[in-house]
């Protein structure tokens, strides 16, 4: 199955989405990511019982923080799908890319460039 998905997406593999912490999500934005989404297994299908549920809560927490600091909570999202859903993976990638394009670039990146800071 060779399915195309937008090439602007950088995939970071983790053993389980339960490993993803709020701090990882925030750091991605600090380093200039325009959007981040976490793709976990279907709810109820976690090999470690609640890894993907924890991930969702952490994504929500990151959303809350990003919203409060003016970056935009919508830039981080959680999706769930099974390993057999390749086409759905590509769909989500397109959906997320479009969503973030609409929101425009990460304001921090713009601000950094304007102020001549290094990313």
């Amino acid at each position, binding site marked *: 199955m060779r399915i195309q998905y937008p090439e602007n997406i950088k995939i970071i593999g983790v053993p389980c989405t339960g490993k993803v912490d709020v701090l990882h999500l925030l750091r991605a934005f*600090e380093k200039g990511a325009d959007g981040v989404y976490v793709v976990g297994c279907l709810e109820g299908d976690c090999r470690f019982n609640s890894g993907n549920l924890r991930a969702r809560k952490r994504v929500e927490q990151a959303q809350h923080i990003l919203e409060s600091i003016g970056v935009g909570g919508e830039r981080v999202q959680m999706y769930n799908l099974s390993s057999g859903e390749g086409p759905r993976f590509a769909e989500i990638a397109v959906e997320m890319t479009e969503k973030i394009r609409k929101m425009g670039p990460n304001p921090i990146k713009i601000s*950094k460039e304007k102020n001549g800071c290094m990313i």
Partner: protein
Amino acid sequence: MIVAKQKPIEEIIEGVRDYEKILIAGCNECVTVCEAGGKKEVGILASALRMYFMNQGKNMKIDEVTLERQCDHEYLEELRKIIDRYDVVISLACGAGVQFMAEKYFRTRVLPGVDTCFMGVTEERGVWSERCQGCGKCILGETAGICPISRCAKRILNGPCGGSTKGKCEIDKELDCAWQLIIDRLNELGRLDDYEKIIPIKDWSTERAGGPRRVVREDLRL
């Protein structure tokens, strides 16, 4: 442990807005366990503040440190060499830690990054609840191991009041009535007759009412 919760980030931002060099100081004890002010929370706050101020076009130096404890001289001393590099410290320790830091580093502004709530326990992951108010004269031996001072909304020593309904407190249906718990436990222990012993008028002088308290152990002093 001492249970605290994080202050809203907006409040922290307001407090440090006019500074340029900020140190965020966590504590490895209670606030780490209740996930309000440990190393991880320091990292999250630092990242959020960096992004906020970058977005505002403001170049801030925001550093992170987490001490073993902020309520002991020896660990707080670790900051002595670096503290002058900062305009302000946001301490994520409990109120005791924040104050001890402020006492020690007299010329540095220290701001609290958490709201210190109570002495309590981890009921389950993400849920903490109060167990002790440090009244200075423990009566748990008389109340079946359940403290009416910290767990009854009216700190009634001879309860329950008329507001106890189906084991819950009238002020909050989620809250157990401390006196129901005491009675249930007395029952379990086969000591319900103890319920009829009147707990006398309490001496509150060992509590907050008596003024700030100290414990001195002469045998331990050098």
